[in-house]
């Protein structure tokens, strides 16, 4: 048993770190967050050249054919860089779901253009009740046409197609389809844009039954957790650095246990979240019997820990941490939007309870 990364995984992680820091420094993040879509075609083309946009797609569909562990390594680095734009929506979310619910033929039709950097995509799931429970979805396709409204759709304005989770299936809608209307929603996270999407008898192609969506959703949730871990790591690094250099009462503030012990807790929380996320990625990829439970455990812990780490980071930065100029709040905003995406800790605790408390609890025996 080996829980560490192998050599090629380490190379992938290190080169991604170098790539994201080089191509998308905080100055670029701040420039993009002030734009309407936070999207930059030049940057996107470079992702594609690195193979990042097709990282998990099968080689027949023009992808690199790597697994969920490699995906989360990229996401962790993207999170550390607070990467703006549709990488998560396109590759980890819509890509993972299209790949897992679609037929091979559908995969060959839709995935290669993403892999080549020519197309972007997203998922429309939440409705006005904002519930991540698939059973609560109200929207129904009639005669392959969708009518109604979806909310909190990430990067919808720059998506070439979107997957739509409806009560009677997973559908694919082209961005130029009739009756589609996309309007920005004003969220706290400035670096990942969200939209309300209205459908009015909009033509849609059915890819699968709704129940098929769960594996793809779990992959996307774990990938999002990895992005959160990257953000936590960055907040920890910035905070420790600040605690070493900022002096009060003639000493670095990191010398005071009230500060130092909070840093230790941030470290414990970040490392524990990383353990949960790496395991969940492996379990989901290998379809382990506890895969769904592992994904929930990752989302439970990471959702709470990302917020707590952010709270501590701001507190330790003192007045500086409360300024617009300091970068912590940008990570903190992202952490809050990610906390609720795919369900927050409360949602996933209940979901985990159905696995380990109710019924036969197979996950409990395998975990």
């Amino acid at each position: 048993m080996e829980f560490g990364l192998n050599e090629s995984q380490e190379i992938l992680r290190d080169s991604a770190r170098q790539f994201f820091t080089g191509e998308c420094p905080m100055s670029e993040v701040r420039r993009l967050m002030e734009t309407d879509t936070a999207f930059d075609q030049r940057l996107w083309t470079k992702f594609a050249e690195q193979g990042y946009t097709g990282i998990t797609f099968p080689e027949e569909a023009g992808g690199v054919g790597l697994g969920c562990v490699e995906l989360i390594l990229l996401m962790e680095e993207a999170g550390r860089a607070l990467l703006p734009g549709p990488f998560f929506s396109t590759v980890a979310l819509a890509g993972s779901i299209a790949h897992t619910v679609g037929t091979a033929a559908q995969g060959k039709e839709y995935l290669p253009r993403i892999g080549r950097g020519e197309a972007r995509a997203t998922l429309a799931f939440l409705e006005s009740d904002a519930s991540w429970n698939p059973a609560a979805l109200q929207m129904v396709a009639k005669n392959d046409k969708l009518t109604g409204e979806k909310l909190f759709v990430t990067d919808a304005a720059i998506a070439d197609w979107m997957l739509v989770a409806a009560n009677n299936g997973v559908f694919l809608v082209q961005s130029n389809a009739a009756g589609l209307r996309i309007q920005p929603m004003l969220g706290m996270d400035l670096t990942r844009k969200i939209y309300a999407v209205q459908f009015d008898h909009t033509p849609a192609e059915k890819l699968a039954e709704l129940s098929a969506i769960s594996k793809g959703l779990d992959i996307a949730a774990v990938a999002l957790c990895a992005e959160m871990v990257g953000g936590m790591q960055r907040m920890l690094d910035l905070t420790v650095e600040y605690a070493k250099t900022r002096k009060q009462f003639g000493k670095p503030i990191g010398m005071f246990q009230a500060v130092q012990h909070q840093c230790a807790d941030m470290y414990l929380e970040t490392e524990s979240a990383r353990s949960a996320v790496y395991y969940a990625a492996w379990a989901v990829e290998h379809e382990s019997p506890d895969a769904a439970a592992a994904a929930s455990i990752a989302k439970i812990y990471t959702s709470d820990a990302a917020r707590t780490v952010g709270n501590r980071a701001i507190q330790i930065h003192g007045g500086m941490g409360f300024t617009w100029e300091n970068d912590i709040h940008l990570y903190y905003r992202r952490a809050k939007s990610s906390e609720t995406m795919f369900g927050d800790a409360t949602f996933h605790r209940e979901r985990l309870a159905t696995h380990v408390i109710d019924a036969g609890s197979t996950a409990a025996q395998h975990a």
Partner: protein
Amino acid sequence: MDLNLTAEELAFRDEFRAWLESHVPKDWSAWREKPLEESFSYLRAWQRKLYEGGWAAVSWPKEYGGRSATLMQQAIFWEEMARVEAPPMANALGLGLIGPTIIAHGTPEQKARYIPKILSAEEIWCQGFSEPNAGSDLAALQTEARLSDGHYVVNGQKVWTSYGWVGDWCELVVRTDPATAKHKGLTVLLVDMKSPGVEVRPLRQMTGESEFNEIFFRDVRVPVENVLGKVNDGWNVAVSTLMHERGAYGARLILTFKRNIHRLIELSRTVQRNGRPAAHDPVLRQKLAQCYAEVEIMRLNQLRAFSRITSTGAPGPEGSIQKLFWSELNQRLQQLAQELLGPLGQLVAGDAHAADRGIWSYGYLRSRGNTIEAGTSEVQRNIIGHFVLGLPRSY
């Protein structure tokens, strides 16, 4: 990353599993609730059996009677022990902490003299570290040893010594040079507990039992050849013992935690809350799920630490993360048990209504010690802050 067991790990597991099947005592359940004073000879006999099968100290190098087991094999060993509910071994400190320290720092003569009898449980070891005025600040210890015609003459007092009442030998940290800075003047002595001037008293703890002892040393003569490591280098020797304490212990605890959370889930199906099983109460479901998740993360942190130690070659500060995580988690788990059981939670062993023969009221009280023993949570956070994050020392 590959979380399946390798062929060697599977072979190791199967070999030990087969050995256990034919050797593990079947009557442990009848003994386990008796006081340690009564069951100790039983535990000695069990360790002797493991020793004869070559299983007493799998982590030790082969040349000293171990199996040079990898960390993952050690985890498998404890998992198999727990799976068959095997009794613990009598010489836990000797095998887990003191033996490895003697192997690392001892002379060839010391290794030949002490190691085999640690393995066979012929000689039980205890650890004399903490003192009334030296707890977290261990280097402030005052028990002194003065050289006098080929012997160190020891005077002072130790506290919180496990197995003191049954110990044949003690790994004792003493001050040999009162003139130098506090870490530098310490030496580790191997002390025969039958020496004149050694007095052992029970230390009664808040649970009512006496797991630990106080030991008084009055003009106790220890031959110079019983110095472990170098004179005045005792701090480094002691620290290597503490590293073992924080690292390996966590692996064994995971199984206890898994058993406890599964038992709590089981209890939640029968304990009633507002006219329905607690398992249907939305608030308790949240708390049980949170606890379940944290127990699982404790296991995953341990596995990741093993992979890291295997690649770097030495136990490092990751032991502090584990210690901090499990000790605080156990307090939350025990509090959850109390919430689940309501008024029944307070009942102690012997009460006819006590759930699980009172283990939850005991566990609740005992868990307060978890964040104090083997390095307080505050000390662990200092270690993480300074040694992992590179923050300046706070003390």
